């Protein structure tokens, strides 16, 4: 049970890039991906700012070389792009006799297709294309990705709102520790949909401008879309194929805030507990953490809650803290794995991206996030937070080898 969990490859797609190299480039050039809705068919087109992958479904299908008639959801398309890149990046041979699994995460599943179905179905219950509604459930995108890659040993999906893919990473690591798998592709995928855009809009937590995480004048989040996957590998698998992994997943923790269905407790008890569990698991001290890639959605309550939890945990020795949500938007189920990939890039290339748009410290909590891009710095351990509806709080710790 004590073996290490290595990270041997990653892939991602979001509004800041179609792959990991483009994402790295965007971070270093401070190019965010937030613009008014352009691709998603919605009444809010041209108005609400979002982090959209600027390719139509047709273009994504062409990029993947798939058949259009398969009618894949956008969640499947984004997920397949990131998952293929992660496998390629890790140079793994799936036919070498070791056990490989896939654990994905999504909140919207194929609801973009259900939306098209419902429009017709509501007018006439004999109408609406069944192919659309058959993609509705969350398992659909995962099974499509698994079959595209040829992964059959274990396939599952997690949906715990905005912490979903942090949790798929955690489950994957535990399955390796239990010797149920030798390696596992873990992550998540979520596309922008009218469902989530109108849902968050109804909750009145969307900023009409570019979001300002941890700022006194923050005014809500920007939604985003994307997917990211990382390959977790056991010592045995790494040894057998003589591969040099990128880094290590040293800690993880999940806790429930048990405060409200959608809002976080002001003091951030769930967040604090998740971070503490992750630290304990990694056998690190608070002082060992060099950078926190915060959940930092820029909603009033999240940043207050997370800020309080960070202050309580780190007390007078606060590491660098920043949110990358102003780059990518909040990609919901994909956020945990996208931010894990961004953390891997920070470790690998020795930089910390700035928390964009920050100007004034919050009145209630004295959190001063990273204002400028920090380069040529030594980072050994990064803590990455993801919190979601239902009080779901998760923290991951990614460390240099």
């Amino acid at each position, binding site marked *: 049970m004590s073996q290490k969990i290595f990270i041997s490859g990653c892939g991602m797609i979001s509004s800041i890039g179609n792959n990991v190299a483009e994402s790295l480039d965007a971070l270093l050039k401070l190019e965010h991906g937030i613009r008014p809705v352009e691709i998603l068919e919605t009444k809010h087109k041209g108005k609400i700012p979002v982090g959209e992958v600027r390719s139509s479904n047709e273009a994504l299908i062409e990029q993947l070389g798939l058949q259009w008639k398969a009618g894949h959801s956008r969640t499947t398309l984004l997920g397949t792009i990131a998952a293929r890149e992660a496998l390629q990046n890790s140079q793994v041979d799936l036919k070498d006799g070791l056990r490989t699994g896939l654990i994905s995460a999504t909140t919207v599943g194929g609801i973009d297709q259900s939306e098209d179905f*419902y429009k017709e179905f509501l007018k006439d219950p004999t109408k609406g294309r069944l192919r659309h509604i058959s993609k509705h*459930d969350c398992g659909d995108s995962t099974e499509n990705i698994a079959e595209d890659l040829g992964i059959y*040993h274990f396939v599952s999906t997690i*949906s715990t709102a905005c912490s979903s893919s942090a949790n798929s990473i955690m489950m994957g690591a535990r399955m390796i520790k239990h010797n149920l798998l030798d390696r596992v592709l873990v992550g998540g995928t979520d596309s922008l949909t009218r*469902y989530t855009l109108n849902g968050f809009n109804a909750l009145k937590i969307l900023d009409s401008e570019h979001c300002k995480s941890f700022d006194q004048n923050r005014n809500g989040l920007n939604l985003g879309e994307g997917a990211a996957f990382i390959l977790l590998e056991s010592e045995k698998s790494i040894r057998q194929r003589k591969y040099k992994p990128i880094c290590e997943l040293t800690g993880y923790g999940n806790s429930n805030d048990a405060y409200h269905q959608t809002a976080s407790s002001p003091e951030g008890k769930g967040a604090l507990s998740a971070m503490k569990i992750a630290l304990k698991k990694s056998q690190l001290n608070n002082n060992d953490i060099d950078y926190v890639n915060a959940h930092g959605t820029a909603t009033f309550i999240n940043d207050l809650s997370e800020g309080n939890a960070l202050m309580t945990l780190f007390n007078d020795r606060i590491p660098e803290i920043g949110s990358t949500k102003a780059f990518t938007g909040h990609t919901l189920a994909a956020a945990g794995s996208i931010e894990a990939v961004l953390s891997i890039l920070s470790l690998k290339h020795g930089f910390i991206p700035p928390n964009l748009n920050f100007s004034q410290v919050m009145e209630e909590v004295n959190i001063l996030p990273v204002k400028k891009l920090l380069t040529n710095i030594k980072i050994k351990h990064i803590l990455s937070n993801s919190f979601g509806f239902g009080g779901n709080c998760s923290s991951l710790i990614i460390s240099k080898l």
Partner: protein
Amino acid sequence: MNIYINVLGNVSPQVTTDNADFLTEPVNKQDTSFACIDPDYKSILQKANLRRMSRLIKFGMYSAQQCLIDSKVENLDAIITGTGLGCLKDTEKFLIDIYGNDEGVLSPTKFMQSTHNTLSGQIALMLNCEQYNFTYVHRGASFESALLDGIMLIEEEANNILVGGLDELTDTYLAVTKRMKMWRRDAISQLDLFSNKQSGSIAGEGASFFMLSKEQSSTSYAKIKGLKILFKPKSIETIYGEMQALIQDAGLEMGAIDVVVLGMNGDQEQDKLYDELIERYFQDKQLTAFKHLCGEYKTASAFGLWTAAQMLGKQNIPEVLKLNKSASPILKNVLVYNCYNNSNHSLLLLQDVNA
């Protein structure tokens, strides 16, 4: 591996909320779908909260609460749920709202309640339980994924874990899946589902919860000795090979299996797999089925586990479950095999607590 199933909670199309009773009076409805029998929600759930809950949350909450009350566990170490379609009714309602007023001003309530982890979050809220809280949403492997996670947690350091599987039927879901030809066209008597195999199964729903514990208790029903989840296995030989491996890993042989619980659903195409398994490997076994009682849904295997746990706990197989009559007098080892839509297969090995 010794993981005890100490308490059960079950709301289903059968009378299953009294754990002392085990299908003594099976419901034999004639219908095109099998909906849950509503228990007296007010008896164990707070009236004020009930108004806000969708049917799924109501019967899910009742089932979970039944487990919690009977187990008397005070410090729960985790809450893990599996659901194929989650809060479907609230999702549909919010979708209808979006198109009803052309993406105008909307109430966020349905949206807030429609996330797949709503129930696990609500249970945590009710219990003020800050522990591990996961929700799996993988089609016919949703409940099994949750169960696997629970087993792993107990092997790590947890003592008591609440694990459940739940899904709800809605009118829209029925209308859509009927068009997909998933179900029988005409109403059918529940208990005739297998004697009259045709194209299509019958839709069902339910919420079955289990208290998994490290220690045996006075109420223990069974021990879990192994679980394997398969995705599109290549052949029937692969499936049987996995069954043998699972049984051997538990230090047993196929000959030690007293009962095989099968997830057949009455669809003549889908049931061919079960028929072939029976013919080739299980001719001399006591066989039982359960989907004629609860209907087919993505987490129906949780109801199947409930029947298996009850059988071992009560050392009795109700006639209504039996597919054949070669009853073994003592029940020690039970194998549960379920297949959903020819894709998600699961094998679960249970053992009598005293074995």
